[in-house]
């Protein structure tokens, strides 16, 4: 796995965007990510659509590699940690989470997380709808732009469509950053891309398996 980094500074806070769909926040020694959708493949299987387990395992391997690379001791998940009902994928996640000695997980609840409330309690995961740690406010879906804080959110699975000469078109996952907010790409690879909704005047940090590209 190749980790490409792009450093940005917001109100004096240093954030490291990576091409592996998570941000490292130096001050809190935390990884920020969104839309992991644990349980999605098992949810599909339960409804008669065969999807391999390996998809989740690959996502978790990638997260583990990021944790080790940055020596992070905290995960801030801005929503949709879980996809649907409690299922066997969740047990895999539980085992994975328990294999860390001291990894703190803070969940900002998203629309998909409601159905796994008991499981969250069982796992001892702290969960809130919104979390303020100045200068940031962490939410799942940013709607309110009157807030005094810079919002960090997910939910939309942002992507960007780039058009070049010779009618070339490329669709890439990205981070969207404005003066007021940052939207994270979906962490799970088993998700689609949404290239329709982009906040006004957003800078797009698009990435590939090896690099990050800034489009403004």
């Amino acid at each position: 796995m190749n980790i490409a980094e792009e450093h940005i500074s917001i109100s004096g806070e240093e954030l490291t965007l990576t091409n592996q769909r998570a941000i490292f926040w130096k001050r809190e020694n935390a990884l920020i990510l969104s839309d992991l959708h644990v349980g999605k493949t098992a949810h599909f299987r339960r409804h008669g659509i065969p999807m391999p387990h390996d998809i989740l395992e690959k996502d978790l391997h990638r997260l583990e590699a990021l944790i080790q690379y940055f020596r992070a001791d905290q995960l801030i998940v801005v929503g949709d940690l879980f996809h649907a009902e409690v299922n066997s994928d969740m047990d895999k996640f539980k085992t994975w989470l328990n294999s860390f000695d001291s990894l703190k997980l803070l969940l900002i609840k998203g629309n998909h997380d409601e159905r796994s409330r008991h499981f969250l309690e069982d796992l001892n995961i702290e969960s809130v709808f919104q979390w303020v740690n100045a200068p940031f406010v962490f939410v799942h879906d940013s709607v309110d732009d009157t807030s005094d804080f810079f919002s960090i959110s997910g939910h939309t699975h942002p992507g960007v469509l780039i058009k070049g000469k010779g009618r070339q078109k490329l669709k890439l996952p990205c981070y969207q950053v404005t003066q007021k907010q940052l939207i994270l790409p979906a962490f799970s690879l088993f998700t689609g891309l949404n290239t329709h909704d982009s906040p006004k005047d957003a800078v797009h940090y698009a990435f590939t398996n090896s690099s990050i590209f800034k489009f403004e």
Partner: protein
Amino acid sequence: MSQFRDSEGLRIINNWMAENGYAPFPFQLQTWQRYANGYSGMVVAPTGFGKTFSVFLAVVIDYLNHPERYPKGLKLLWISPLRSLAKDLAKAMNEAIDAIGLDWTAEVRNGDTPTAARRRQERNMPDILLTTPETMHLLFSQKKNSRWFKNLKCVAIDEWHELIGNKRGVLTELAISQLRHYAPKLKIWGITATIGNLEEAKSVLLPYSDLKITEIKAKQKKKLDIISVLPDEIEVLPWAGHLGAKMVDKILPIIASNTTTLIFTNTRGQAELWYQLLLNAQPDLAGLLAIHHGSIDKKLRNWIEDNIASGYLKAVVCTSSLDLGVDFKPVDCVIQIGSVKGIARFMQRAGRSGHSPFERSKIYFIPTHSLELVEVSALKEAIKDKQMESRDPMVLTFDVLVQFMVTLAVGEGFKSEELFQRIQQIHAFNYLTKEDWLWCIHFITKGGKTLNSYEEFHKVILEEDGNYRVKSRRISMLHRMNIGAIVSEVNVMVKYMSGGYIGMIEEFFISKLKPGDSFILAGRVLELVQIKDMTVLVRRSKAKKAVSPSWLGGRLPLTSHLSHYLRLKLSDALQPGRLEKELRFLNPLVSRQEEHSHIPKQDEFLVELIETKDGHHLFMYPFEGRLVHEVFSALMAYRISKIKPITFTIAMNDYGFELLSDQPIPVDQENIRALLSKENLMDDVVASINASEMASRKFRDIAVIAGLVVQSQPGTRKNNKSLQSSSGLIFRVLEDYEPDNLLLKQAYTEVFNQQLEEARLQQSFERISKSKIIVKHARSFTPLSFPLKVDSLRGTMSNENLDKRIQRIKEQAFKID
């Protein structure tokens, strides 16, 4: 035989016909007789000659002669491809039944049938049931469905030529096999129009060695007048993709001088546009002119069909939605706007006018761009030579097979070995191996990869009695929603704010509009208010400008037959024959092509290189039809990219294709022969298909049919959002984790079998190898290349490093969407 001639049943029918002033056609009589003698078979007859009454009355006569052989319940099952056909057929059958004095009923069952009627049928089946292949499979998914079919005497497959070439044909083959399982003595009769491979069509429908099989052909021929309508001057003709709106003035007099005119367009978007154009040009047509296509509300469509039949409507703008169907007696004229892309389809549409056996059919052809005039000239030649296209049956469609297996498992269940034996008898699965079969069983019971099973995946379960069954209600429900082989774009319902349903529209189109924008549907200008629960709420709009929707599925490829004639005609076009008015008319345009570039003669192959501000263009004109050009262009892109890493966007039409790049294309007189060489042809084709997006596109339908992608239902709240995923995503997942998946392999096979037509491609390269290759550098777009330039449907192929590519786009001017 004389026994049948003297039979009571035949006498009753003959009398009934005579009372109405008819006598049976020879082919009808022949069908009745063969049926009475225990035959199954295929009737070949054009529409309008009473083909329905051949098979339907055969069963009636046999019943009249031997009522004791027909227990209560379903006797004749009538499967036709179109819902709209069934309603009128049932009406005609019931009228005949009443007049003859039978106590039978004929009823329709399809997606439009109300629940109450369906429940009643399930308690008490009618004597004749008219239905579709999809509804048959839905019936098989019901508990204890075999009881309905055990006394069935005959299954008739109407319009078999419309089914055989696609997956609905495979659904039909499977349905027949299942019916034979329930009623082993069942007779099977197909009814078809003339196609190029009648013999094959018969053996696909009737592969069973225990049947007595016959073929009956109607001798009657339809007289046909083809009239092409030319604009006043050639400059008037706009380019491909744009409509010849100025031709409106030519259409109005044709409408005025006929009783009822059907105006066929090739896409729903074009139908909407022409409807507006005609109304604007002659406002007093309002109320007498209607628009009919598949996205318009069913009730409105029924109203339109009734009012064509009654002669109230003067003209109807329509799409293939009116290709088939019962006779609209008043229709005496057909107008075809734009190329129809195939000989058989053109004949079919022409046949919608002058419907009774002894009338002439009359079709006017309105070109929408210049080259279509060459096409109509080619069409005339092909019809003169009596050349009809073949409809090739599909084979080894694993998506349809696994769907069928789950359907049976939801219904009465199946035993593996026994079903395998039956499936192997079907034409589509003659070559199904035991190994493939076991993979399918594994796929529906364990999920996938043969080595490990998926936890929680219990779609189909092997029960102790040896039957495979579905136990979960939710899975049964999801499966029933998904039965069928027609995969449409995701559609959303369009409704007025105040209530009132207008029609359906593709989500892809609506997603590009914002609230307040106006668009056209069903001939009305509508303003988008909001989108909610797969429903678009609109109000009437006064806007002058509105977008006309584009439906993605609208384009038909040119058939190989027609393209052959097209190539001949184009090389003729420099010296047109005296009687070929289309070619004479085109002469100025052809001369321009010759002047700025070249007109390829029969033994030549033209390559054009043009540089514009868009980039570097390469055009080639094999004239093999859109589908083959997709493969051909990918192959060229692949071979060129071996010279240097390069990215192409690719556009194609029926005449040729374009490779466009931001970098110079390394093609010249020196290397062109090697690029077009027939050496290593198939190896390079395989490599280029793997490198392109073709298989992934084919996988879209496969994923839906096999139940890997759950389609959301328009207008319902239950859109199964948590189960949404795209076929593209699943395609990538399978390529990564399960490359041996048969459904994935099927996607590649379909590219080969359906698009590539290996023989056709080989021939084409054979021809090119003997041709003189002409490379021309043109300074601007030529008459042949321009239609390709404006085409917006494009694919991409690249063998460049992605990072380098992005970097270069960044350095050039780029745009973000």
